[in-house]
């Protein structure tokens, strides 16, 4: 090996890296919370919603799931201003992530809803609840519990995928890595450090989601 690793620069660029971590975390949090919410709404629409809404949501889901995130991001950031909708790179990044996770979350959550035994809907109905009430109070939580592991994985994937936002100058962790290496030309050390940080974030995020699952769902297996 003819390359001497040198992590000394890390001290100088630590603030850049920290800021990058902060933004990646923020993007993941906002994207996760709003994206899952959007996913729930879309899953409801696709599984139980009015007939006219189903194809609309289906088209949205297919569009998003079959095109790269980066291009969605470009259209939000560079394209929407043409329609008079201008936002900063962070808002654009957040919006793109919400739209993206919303589509994936929709399909995952829908599977959970469709696995709900028919008897649960009927029990809700026979107690006088409306369809929406039955969905909200009876169906949703067990459905989420059923697909929680899949949803958690998707949120981690979205966190890792958020790297693309560096392309619209949002200063996330990948931006920080690229910025540092463009100044120092120490690509290996920078990317290696970034990889480790991503790994740590992914592990922590997964644990957090597991913990969240433990707190919102009662401790039993959903059937």
């Amino acid at each position, binding site marked *: 090996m003819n390359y001497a690793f040198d992590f000394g620069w890390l001290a100088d660029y630590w603030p850049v890296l920290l800021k990058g971590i902060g933004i990646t975390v923020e993007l993941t949090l906002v994207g996760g919370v709003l994206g899952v919410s959007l996913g729930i709404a879309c899953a409801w629409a696709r599984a139980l919603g009015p007939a006219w809404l189903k194809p609309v949501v289906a088209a949205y889901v297919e569009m998003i799931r079959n095109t790269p995130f980066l291009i969605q991001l470009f259209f939000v950031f560079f394209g929407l201003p043409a329609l008079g909708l201008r936002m900063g790179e962070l808002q654009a990044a957040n919006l793109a992530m919400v739209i993206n996770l919303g589509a994936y979350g929709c399909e995952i959550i829908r599977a959970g809803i469709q696995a709900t*035994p028919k*008897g*649960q809907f*009927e*029990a*809700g*109905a*026979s*107690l*006088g*609840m*409306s369809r929406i*009430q039955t969905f909200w*109070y*009876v169906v949703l*939580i*067990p459905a989420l*519990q059923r697909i929680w592991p899949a949803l958690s994985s998707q949120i981690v994937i979205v966190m890792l995928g958020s790297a693309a936002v560096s392309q619209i100058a949002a200063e996330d962790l990948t931006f920080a890595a690229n910025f540092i290496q463009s100044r120092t030309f120490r690509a290996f050390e920078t990317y290696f450090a970034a990889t480790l940080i991503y790994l740590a974030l992914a592990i922590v995020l997964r644990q957090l989601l597991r913990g969240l699952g433990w707190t919102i*769902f*009662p401790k*039993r*297996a*959903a*059937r």
Partner: protein
Amino acid sequence: MSLIEITEVKKRFGDNEVLKGINIDVEPGEVIAIIGKSGSGKSTLLRCINGLETIDEGSISVAGAQLLPDELHLKALRLKVGMIFQGFNLFPHLTAGRNVMLSQMVVRKTPKAEAEAMAKKMLERVGLGHKFDAYPDQLSGGQQQRVAIARALAMQPIALLCDEITSALDPELVNEVLAVVKELASEGMTLLMVTHEMRFARDVCSRVVFMHQGRVHEIGPPGEVFANPKTAELKQFLGVVH
């Protein structure tokens, strides 16, 4: 006027006519057992009365009000008629107490404290006061079914429909559920129940309805129906179930 009036009710699934003109009048306080072979339409009849299925012809009225298939009428109906299923259908993510409270709070907008008091009372009534905080999967089948009964009772229905509520239970647990039903009957609750427990039907019910191929084939007090089955079908049916 009868409490529940079922008049010439017909129900088709596609080409399959499952109910071929049903007529039953249920008086307040009556306890009616519905028996019959698998596929004879027993569940479908109960589901029609509760509005879970729409009927194709005929009419059903409960306490004088016609059953109409829009959300508002259905809701009103379901506040009058409770239903309990073979599969219990408890909400798995809620404790027993919450299961009983939920519909009161959501449908009737009962304040929480009141709903909780009612839930306590109803769980006591089915002998499960101490299981208020247990989740369904921590309860035996019989206990789950009793929670389902408490849940229906908490809505203070004027009649209760029970679809084979003991047949998913182990023999030992059947009795604890039937005991609860028996008590309800003795307190004057109007009950329509599909059941395979002939002994229970004989002891507790005021009338027995034998359904066969979508029709009420025989109907009468249990003494008569069990002792003197008039049709060959009923004779055979009673033979099979021993």
